[in-house]
């Protein structure tokens, strides 16, 4: 029998959700300050209105949920504590995460929509989810005339979403919150760097801010050498850093990375993309001097092999498929083929080619190589999307173990180990969990591909775009555009959301809704 959720459950979820929403409102003070400093009056109003809407809705929600909880507390003995000190359970935590991402999408879309550069609120929601989920697919109109404030917000959503919306709330706005780990796991961060989850969140921010300073400085210097003014170069440097390190893929101009025509920019962003694709636990070991871990870790080994293999497939496809790079030298293949591949594999989505070129000039073989790279993704507990290297490594180790079981004598005990921070024995439950998530991703890629085909696009382009959305990559072969059907936009939004949260929180929310409808 399915039990219908009690009003108190909804109140607890709503109360903590309102705190996260208020935290999100505070992050908008950065673009508001930018608008003030740059003298952009229209964008200033857009963000002021949005912050006010967030505060009104957040405070109202908080009061209503508190009142519902207090009235329910008198009847139910399970809720003895006050709502502030109540420890949310796993279900509460997961639903809070799933809903906070949807709330962030809607609230983050308001200033974009008010700017007039997105023709509908759905398009603005698409952009907002694409930013928070670090995807990078864009439906912006006339991006080259977008204000600095709105452009900063687009990139800042990637910085927030890359670290995790809840991680932001845990780090800065929610103090002493005991249900933190449940929400942390809900955001697809199932590995703690440090024993305390708040300290883990703060370490993640420490790493991010250090790289922010270094990466922005490097991009700033290259931008100025490229002939940009110092102010513009700094702005572009900060935006590009946020999109590269958080494996997002937005860029301030409509041509994406092609705008700069600069290999220095491409080299720095390639390094940042790889850094962003590394597990934060691995970052911790590197920061504490354990550099050997980089060579021994299963994720890094699988990532190296995977990049090499998918690049060979893509390069052969480009060379033999009659693309315009076929007659170019190895450098052309590196700047166009390898850069796009690395961008796809790390889930970034930076492009130095036009989406139309990918759709029309790249052969099916090269697109298949790119699709595989995008689907595989980077490391777990990083800012990338996709199936992830640890899971691929575990599945590969399980295959090796099964082959050994067949080859070795039946009495032999076959133990398989892999190195991930420490030596880990392969267990069936670990393999099962990896296979389940992999299967869920494959189904998600398939749903988007089917939707694309139903909208009249070919199989390979549909699969390419679907994988790009679900694995939070952002590369496009031309399907993503303002003119695509609204249903496809909604499906891509769902894919970005479910892919970023790695399903558990989404499934819990679906179960909760089902219980609310069918429960007794």
């Amino acid at each position: 029998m399915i039990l219908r959720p009690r009003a108190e459950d909804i109140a607890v979820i709503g109360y903590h959700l309102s705190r996260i929403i208020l935290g999100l409102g505070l992050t908008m003070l950065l673009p508001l300050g930018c608008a003030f400093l740059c003298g952009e009056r229209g964008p200033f109003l857009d963000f002021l209105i949005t912050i006010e809407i967030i505060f009104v809705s957040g405070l109202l929600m908080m009061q209503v949920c508190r009142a519902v909880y207090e009235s329910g507390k008198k009847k139910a003995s399970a809720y003895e504590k006050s709502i502030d000190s109540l420890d949310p359970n796993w279900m509460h935590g997961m639903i809070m995460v799933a809903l906070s991402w949807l709330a962030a999408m809607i609230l983050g879309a308001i200033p974009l929509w008010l700017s007039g550069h997105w023709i509908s609120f759905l398009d603005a929601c698409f952009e907002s989810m694409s930013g928070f989920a670090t995807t990078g697919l864009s439906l912006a109109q006339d991006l080259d005339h977008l204000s600095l404030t709105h452009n900063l917000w687009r990139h800042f959503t990637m910085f927030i979403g890359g670290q995790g919306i809840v991680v932001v709330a845990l780090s800065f706005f929610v103090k002493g919150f005991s249900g933190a780990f449940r929400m942390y796991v809900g955001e697809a961060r199932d590995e703690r760097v440090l024993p305390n989850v708040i300290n883990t969140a703060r370490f993640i921010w420490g790493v991010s801010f250090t790289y922010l300073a270094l990466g922005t400085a490097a991009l700033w210097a290259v931008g100025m050498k490229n002939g940009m003014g110092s102010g513009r170069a700094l702005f572009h440097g900060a935006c590009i850093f946020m999109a590269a390190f958080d494996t997002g893929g937005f860029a301030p101009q409509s041509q994406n990375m092609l705008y700069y025509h600069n290999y220095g920019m491409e080299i720095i962003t390639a390094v940042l993309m790889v850094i962003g694709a590394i597990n934060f636990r691995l970052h911790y070991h590197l920061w504490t001097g354990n550099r050997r871990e980089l060579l021994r870790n299963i994720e890094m080994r699988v990532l190296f092999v995977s990049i090499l293999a998918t690049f060979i497939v893509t390069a052969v496809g480009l060379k033999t498929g009659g693309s315009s790079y076929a007659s170019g030298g190895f450098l052309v293949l590196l700047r166009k083929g390898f850069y796009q591949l690395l961008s796809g594999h790390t889930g970034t989505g930076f492009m130095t080619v036009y989406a139309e070129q990918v759709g029309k000039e790249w052969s099916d073989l090269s697109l298949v190589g790119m699709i595989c790279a995008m689907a595989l993704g980077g490391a777990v507990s990083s800012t990338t999307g996709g199936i992830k290297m640890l899971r691929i490594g575990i599945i590969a180790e399980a295959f090796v173990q099964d082959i050994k079981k067949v080859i070795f004598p039946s009495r032999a005990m076959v133990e398989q180990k892999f190195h991930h921070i420490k030596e880990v024995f392969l267990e069936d439950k670990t393999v099962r969990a990896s296979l389940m998530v992999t299967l869920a991703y494959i189904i998600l890629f398939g749903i988007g591909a089917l939707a694309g085909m139903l909208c009249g696009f070919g199989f390979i382009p549909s699969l390419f775009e679907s994988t790009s959305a679900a694995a939070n990559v952002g590369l496009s072969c031309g399907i993503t555009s303002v003119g695509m059907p609204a249903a496809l936009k909604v499906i891509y939004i769902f894919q970005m959301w479910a892919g970023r949260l790695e399903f558990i929180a989404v499934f819990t929310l679906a179960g909760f809704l089902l219980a609310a409808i069918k429960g007794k």
Partner: protein
Amino acid sequence: MRITLRILTVFCLLSAALAVSCWGACAGPETVSSSSLLTDPGLYDGRTISFEGEVIGDIMKQGRYAWINVNDGRSAIGVFTAAENVAGLSAGGYKRQGDIVRVSGEFHRACHRHGGDMDIHAGSVTVIIKSAAREELICPAAKKMAVLLAGAICLLLISMLYGRLRKKR
């Protein structure tokens, strides 16, 4: 004789008209849109073309050469040219409409000199319309909305404070 003269006159006039139209066509290269360049890049690869649009973003001067990006309303294409050709150009952004220019030069589907970029190596850059400031349109209703919402927040905060004080008592 008269008929022959008339025929000759008509023939001469037609020839002159044909020559003028041919000269007109040969005087400048074909003006191509970004849509055509992206849809069928192979057709224009290595050919001298003319491309018109707004200079956007930055004028990136690097020694004797410079990069600009020209947007014709659909897509922007990179233009590589001599630095002297971009002197005095203004690029567009949020507060400014950039110069509308006509660039003429060789189109590359995948320029080997520039790592495979799709670009135009322009011999000339001509300003058609000078840049101008863009007016910031602010909806009066937005100002009213901001004031109303600020009032709502104040009311909410007062009610919360009042509720807390009542609880304490």
